[in-house]
């Protein structure tokens, strides 16, 4: 049996950046952590929940609430951490910008996990810019060891300089593993809550004084940052000086081992004295950074230097060693022996057995579509369903449907509904629904309740009856919430029952009044198959009509004339293909599987 990580106090472990941040929080005495899941940040709280019981940890309904709760815990003198994906920081920006003025009593580390390359995100925003706008300290580690250590350093900076600290990770830091030297937990006492109106109530008279302190704080940290080890010069060949941070540093060391390097660990405020020193040491300066020209613009504006940066390094997408090699040392790229082969892409799809499939199959069959949201069900946009037409941000499906009705009226809206998962609805869909009721909209909102925050890998939320640590928790009653918002027509349906799903969807789309359909069936990730059961095709009976292909099930492929059902992929407690076959050619033993 594997030992829990909080029982291991020394040695080296191969840890992901996320695991390392969790470890760093534990070692440096963090008392409390709260977060809403979001790729690539999710594992930080998961690992704290699973491995480090000394930290009180919980899922928040959204990032703003998570930020507010850790703010309060810091006011109480506890060391705190919250984590979110980059767009989560937009949700939490309101508390962040003012928390910056208020400062930290117990140390505050806020993890922003950015996603260059958009592996699982809707934009590529660079939250170093958010940190600078909020006037908080921004830290950037370049591997797991630094990610672990920097949590402790960040908490100390936070307490010493009375500031929240933004720990900016990127997907390649979060989800890369490297060796980490670990240590024991160092307990820190909770200072206790002491009311301080001038410090924590930013009415204009107080806030003006706070702002002065913030500006002074930034100057102090910049000066200190030139002396500390988080920013460092690695002296090499003076003819090439590379300024870099985060994962880009590792690519630079890979392809330019001989160069002089200024490695920035504190991206805001920048260590001006150290930068000036580096610029005086080297001839050609190159900025190697992912996404925005953050270091480049700030340093060029301050020192008015000529340097290469975004003219040779792309602003879009992730960097990698090839890109950095071709940009910094053109003509030295590795020989490619085997050329690229043109192949069909392999996009993600709703899992075999996914309950969302039933809802989108019926919506598509009825000629309907949806304004969509953020979750697995965004995949309703894919063929063969093509039944989701917009995605903006968490909760936006409802507001967008509302707005389309404003623009084109009930008639113009046609068979458009809003599609939103239960976790996203709790995160920020409820206010949109209140707006629809308040302002007299007539659309249909489909809350796709699979009782799990699924796309991020399967986390608990207020509707699932469990907390972060898997302990029993009160269940938020969606029907009552929806009714309390003022919705008169509420239907609950199992989307795996295609006939009933289609009937209810058809009825509610026809209705002239606002309605909510809750499609309720647990995510397959929560179902432990009791036995193996696969759908069998009787190819004598099959007429090759292709209706089963309209389910878009990954387990069903088409050989040109007839379907084939994969024994490896078919999911035990799903028989949607049996339900859609018009000639009874597909059969499945479903006994004892529901």
């Amino acid at each position, binding site marked *: *049996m*594997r030992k829990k990580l909080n029982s291991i106090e020394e040695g080296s472990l*191969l840890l992901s950046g996320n695991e390392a941040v969790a470890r760093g929080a534990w070692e440096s005495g963090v008392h409390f952590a709260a977060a809403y899941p979001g*790729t*690539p940040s999710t594992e930080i709280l998961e690992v704290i929940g699973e491995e480090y019981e000394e930290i009180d940890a919980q899922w928040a309904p959204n990032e703003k609430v998570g930020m507010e709760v850790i703010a309060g815990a810091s006011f109480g003198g506890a060391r705190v951490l919250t984590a979110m994906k980059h767009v989560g920081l937009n949700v939490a920006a309101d508390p962040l910008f003012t928390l910056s003025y208020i400062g930290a009593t117990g140390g505050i580390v806020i993890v922003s996990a950015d996603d260059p390359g958009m*592996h*699982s995100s809707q934009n590529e925003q660079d939250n170093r810019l958010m940190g600078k706008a909020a006037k908080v300290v921004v830290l950037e580690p370049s*591997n797991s060891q630094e990610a672990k250590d920097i949590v402790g350093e960040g908490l100390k900076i936070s307490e010493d300089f009375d500031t929240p600290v933004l720990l900016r990770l990127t*997907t*390649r830091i979060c*989800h*890369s*593993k*490297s*060796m980490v030297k670990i240590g024991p937990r160092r307990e820190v006492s909770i200072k206790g809550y002491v009311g301080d109106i001038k410090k924590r109530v930013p009415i204009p008279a107080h806030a003006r004084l706070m702002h002065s302190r913030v500006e002074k704080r930034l100057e102090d940290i910049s000066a200190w940052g030139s002396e500390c080890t988080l920013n460092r010069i690695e002296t090499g060949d003076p003819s090439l000086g590379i300024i870099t941070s985060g*994962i880009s540093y*590792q*690519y630079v*060391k*890979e392809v330019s081992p001989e160069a002089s390097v200024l490695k920035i660990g504190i991206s805001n405020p920048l260590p001006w004295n150290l930068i000036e020193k580096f610029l005086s040491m080297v001839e050609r300066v190159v900025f190697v950074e992912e996404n925005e020209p953050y270091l480049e613009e700030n340093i060029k504006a301050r020192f008015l230097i000529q340097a290469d940066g975004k003219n040779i390094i792309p602003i879009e997408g992730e960097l*990698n*060693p*090839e890109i950095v*090699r071709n940009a910094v040392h053109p003509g030295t*790229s*590795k*020989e*490619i*022996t*085997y*050329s*690229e*082969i043109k*192949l*069909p*892409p*392999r*996009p*993600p*799809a*709703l*899992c075999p057995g996914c309950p969302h499939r039933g809802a989108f199959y019926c919506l598509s069959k009825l000629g309907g579509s949806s304004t969509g949201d953020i979750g*697995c069900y965004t*995949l309703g946009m*894919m*063929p*063969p369903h093509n039944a989701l037409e917009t995605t903006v941000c968490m909760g936006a499906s409802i507001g967008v449907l509302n707005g389309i009705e404003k623009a084109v009226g009930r008639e113009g809206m046609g068979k458009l509904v809003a599609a939103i998962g239960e976790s996203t609805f709790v995160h920020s869909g409820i206010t949109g629904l209140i707006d629809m009721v308040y302002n007299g909209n007539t659309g249909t909102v489909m809350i796709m309740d699979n009782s799990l925050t699924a*796309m*991020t*890998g399967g986390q608990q939320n207020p509707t699932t009856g469990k907390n972060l640590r898997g302990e029993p928790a009160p269940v938020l009653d969606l029907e009552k919430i929806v009714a309390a918002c003022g919705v008169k027509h509420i239907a609950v349906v199992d989307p795996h029952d295609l006939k009933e799903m289609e009937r209810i969807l058809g009825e509610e789309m026809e209705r002239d009044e606002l309605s909510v359909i809750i499609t309720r069936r647990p995510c397959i990730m929560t179902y432990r198959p009791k036995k193996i059961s696969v759908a069998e095709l009787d190819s004598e009976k099959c007429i090759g009509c292709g209706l089963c*292909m309209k389910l*878009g099930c*990954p387990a*069903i*492929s*088409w050989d040109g004339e007839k379907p084939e059902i*994969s024994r*490896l*992929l078919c999911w035990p407690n799903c028989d949607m293909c049996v339900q859609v076959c018009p000639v009874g050619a597909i059969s499945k033993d479903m006994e004892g599987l529901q």
Partner: protein
Amino acid sequence: MKSVTNVIICGTGGQGILLASEVLCAAAAHAGNDVKKSEVHGMAQRGGSVSSHVRFGEKIFSPLVEKGSADLILAMEKMEALRWSPYLAPHGKLVSCDLKINPMTVNAGSAEYPDVDSVIKRENLPVKLVPAVEIAEKLGNLRVVNIVLIGAVSPHLPIDIVNWEKAIEERVPPKALEVNLEAFRKGRELFG
């Protein structure tokens, strides 16, 4: 002696790629190497392409393998083997599970699954196809396909068998240990 070994493990979501790369990393670490690995989670889990880069040696900087520099590619699905072939070094080896999983683009009729055998011939790819699914089926556990494949590539990597076995022991649940070790041995016998 070459100081860094570059490996890519690829396939489709749900095939156990992450466990396979965990085992490889642990084995490489037990053999005294610096190790880094990198992969992307999230949407890729929903049946999309998944890949894991593993690098080990004396000192590793980048967690990503560069094109043209993989000593070994282990593919759990054969079209994915073709997708990653530009990463192979001139001397690189490519071992793939002899398994076809249609992407949704093929099921939806908007693309065709390639004739993998003829592409391998045309491009002169150094591919060895392994019947790992059949081997796992004979062992009575389809979930060990990934470990059969790890066994199959193990002779190509500078890691002793004791370190492989130790890595497997650490990474699989006790009740599944015996079948996983057997899967590893069956795979290793293929080219051993």
